[in-house]
């Protein structure tokens, strides 16, 4: 065990930071600092900037454009992107579908989709949740019936983030309704321009419309868009969720929020109570970062791909700390936090506070994560 700062990693961090500083338009950074989001054009341009540098999908296999970085460097890269802040690449393609495709997809699927994910030519969204299947994903009811060389898809997905901008959706559908819950589910790739699809934004209390309901009415999905084997979609989904969870610490975003709180606080820093809560949160964020480092560095020793239940800590604390930072921002904003800006970009303190409630709900609610820890780690 040797934990002294590593000069090579520090140099790598500087390299990433310098690249971002030199290449990210200042306006995009300002938008993100205000709590807003890059629009599709901005995100596409930035994804391609990263792609030109070879950094669009650093965690992918080198064959598909990955960098071959070790997990520590991947973590540092993501941290710098988040804290700068620069836009993160669209996770539905790069972090969720990508790994599923290069692990389980057919060669044709890989050839067709992976390059377009890396450059954001295709905007993907995720069709897992349904109105009746939130945390209990396996109870989903959207069904796909095989008819010749296609599946006919009927049903409804809910909480589909950014579906309104999307070209494609990967989704889970029941292909064998006689099988028990987890069996008989398949993983399909659906072109959202297919006839029979209706996308309806869900307005949320933060003023945004990040999420949508997506309705499928006899939608034809070519059988070639089945990923892996029929009825085995649950396995691919579990693989995907385990990948997703380890990215949920989002330490860099917590750091960013705390930096912005510190800037917004002004005279409030003279209040020892506020100041203590701020530095206490900084310390908690550091604890999470060290935990992530431990997880990541242990990953270097075990086979890649194995899901680490400790990742549930990252999800829980990552969400709690961003929420705590948002609460501090709300407090710092004072009476002005009452204003309703009606931007759907979370750029005021109250909208951010409301919006970030989602962090402890989605991606496997924090309750689900606690149960995972209790059962898998503690053996209860």
């Amino acid at each position, binding site marked *: 065990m040797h934990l002294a700062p590593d000069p090579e990693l520090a140099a790598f961090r500087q390299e990433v930071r310098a690249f971002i500083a030199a290449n990210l338009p200042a306006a995009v950074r300002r938008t993100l600092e205000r709590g807003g989001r890059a629009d599709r054009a901005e995100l596409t341009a930035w994804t391609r900037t990263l792609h030109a540098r070879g950094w669009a999908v650093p965690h992918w296999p080198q064959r598909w454009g990955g960098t071959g970085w070790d997990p520590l460097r991947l973590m540092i890269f993501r941290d710098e992107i988040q804290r700068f802040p620069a836009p993160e690449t669209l996770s539905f393609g790069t972090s969720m579908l990508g790994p599923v495709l290069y692990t389980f997809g057919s060669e044709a699927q890989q050839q067709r989709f992976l390059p377009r994910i890396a450059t954001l030519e295709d905007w993907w969204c995720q069709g897992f*949740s349904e109105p*009746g299947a*939130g*945390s*209990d994903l396996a*109870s989903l009811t959207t069904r796909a019936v095989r008819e010749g060389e296609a599946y006919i898809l009927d049903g409804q997905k*809910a*909480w589909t983030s950014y579906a309104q901008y999307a070209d494609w959706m990967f989704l889970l559908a029941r292909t064998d309704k006689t099988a028990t819950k987890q069996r008989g589910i398949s993983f399909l790739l659906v072109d959202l321009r297919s006839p029979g699809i209706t996308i309806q934004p*869900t*307005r*949320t*209390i*933060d003023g945004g419309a990040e*999420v949508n309901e997506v309705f499928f009415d006899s939608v034809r999905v070519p059988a070639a868009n089945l990923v892996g084997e029929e009825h085995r979609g649950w396995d691919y989904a579990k693989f995907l969720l385990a990948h997703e969870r380890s990215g949920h610490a989002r330490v860099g975003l917590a750091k960013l929020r705390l930096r912005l709180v510190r800037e917004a606080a002004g005279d409030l820093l003279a*209040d020892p*109570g*506020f100041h203590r809560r701020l530095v206490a949160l900084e310390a908690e964020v550091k604890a999470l970062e060290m935990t992530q480092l431990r997880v990541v560095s242990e990953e270097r020793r075990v086979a890649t791909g194995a899901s680490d239940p400790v990742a549930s800590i990252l999800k829980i604390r990552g969400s709690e700390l961003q*929420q705590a930072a948002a609460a501090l921002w*709300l*407090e710092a*904003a*004072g*009476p*002005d*936090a*009452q*204003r*309703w800006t*009606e931007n759907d970009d979370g750029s005021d303190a*109250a*909208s951010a*506070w*409301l919006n970030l*409630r*989602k962090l*402890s*709900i*989605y991606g496997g*609610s*924090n*309750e689900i994560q*606690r149960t995972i820890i209790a059962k898998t780690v503690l053996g209860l």
Partner: protein
Amino acid sequence: MTMDFAPSEEQRLLVDTLRRALKADEAVARILASLDQTSGWSRLRWQALADLGVLALPFEEADGGLAASPETMMLAMIEFGRAVVIEPVWSTLILGGSAVRHAGSAAQRERLIARIIDGSLTLAFAHGEPGSRWQRTLVRTRARCTDGQWHLTGQKHTVLFGASADEIVVSARCFGSDDAAEGIGLFLVPAAAAGLSRKGYRTQDALEAADLVLDEVVGEPLGDTSLGAAALERILDDATAGAIAEAVGAMEEALQLTIGYLKTRQQFGRPIGDFQALQHRAANLYIAVEQARSMAFYAAAAQHEAGPARSAALAAALAVTITSARLVAEEAIQLHGGIGMTMEYRLGHLVKRLAMLEPRFGSREVVLDQLARHGGLAGEM
């Protein structure tokens, strides 16, 4: 009179009337319909409240009012909170109304109160300023008397219903340093006054608010300008009591929705309310709501008193209410999951009202500082 915790027949009747009139379960539709408008609140519904006599509640009988007790006002505010009312109750009945009641001269009361009661006059109360962060006596807006007329100059921020109010009660400093307790006067300013500009907007919880700039605006002193400080304490204490009761109503409704959801929402083959971890968290919510309700009672009791003891009690009650409101706002959404965050579902609007408790009436730490300055509740320990 002996202490009595049960509502009287009259109070029961009022609560029933309000519940029927306010229709809490239609709050979502009302709020969503209002969001397309600058103001959003409905003159029609305001008039309906007037017709029910509700707008007469806090005023003295001599002024044509119903002289409702603090307990009755509390029960009414709980109902307003439950229904996430977006009409100018705050500005006209509680803040502005309290200003007229406690500071207004007999002539002013006669001129104004009848019109409040019949629904034809709405008020706003302009006190907070940029950077004042709920400090009660930090007033930089200046009042200068020239040729027998008071001229007001300064800025007021997040003035509830400040854009639509017919008349505005403005606090302004007649003398003294920016944060001196003495030297604050209250002035009536008509909406159309020269030199007054108002920038209206909506609040997170669908109320209307405005930022005001006053440039040598002529104001009419509300009562005697020298009474400003005491009247201000009284008005803000009334507002604190109202804030607590409104939050209690919102919390009770949020809790009820949450319990209902836990009973019906199925996951993993059974209602999620079967899961013990959620049961215990629901129990904690219930406790939090009951503690706040108890403090609404305490606040009502304190309003029968005067001076610093009243202000200390109200700060204590608000502090507990804030703690409960934070928990309820966070946990009610979490226990619902995504549905709790949608505009089409009632919970989110209750949560938004609760989330505005601190921005509107004071952060927990500022409120605790107020309580500490009054010596806490040491005298009752």
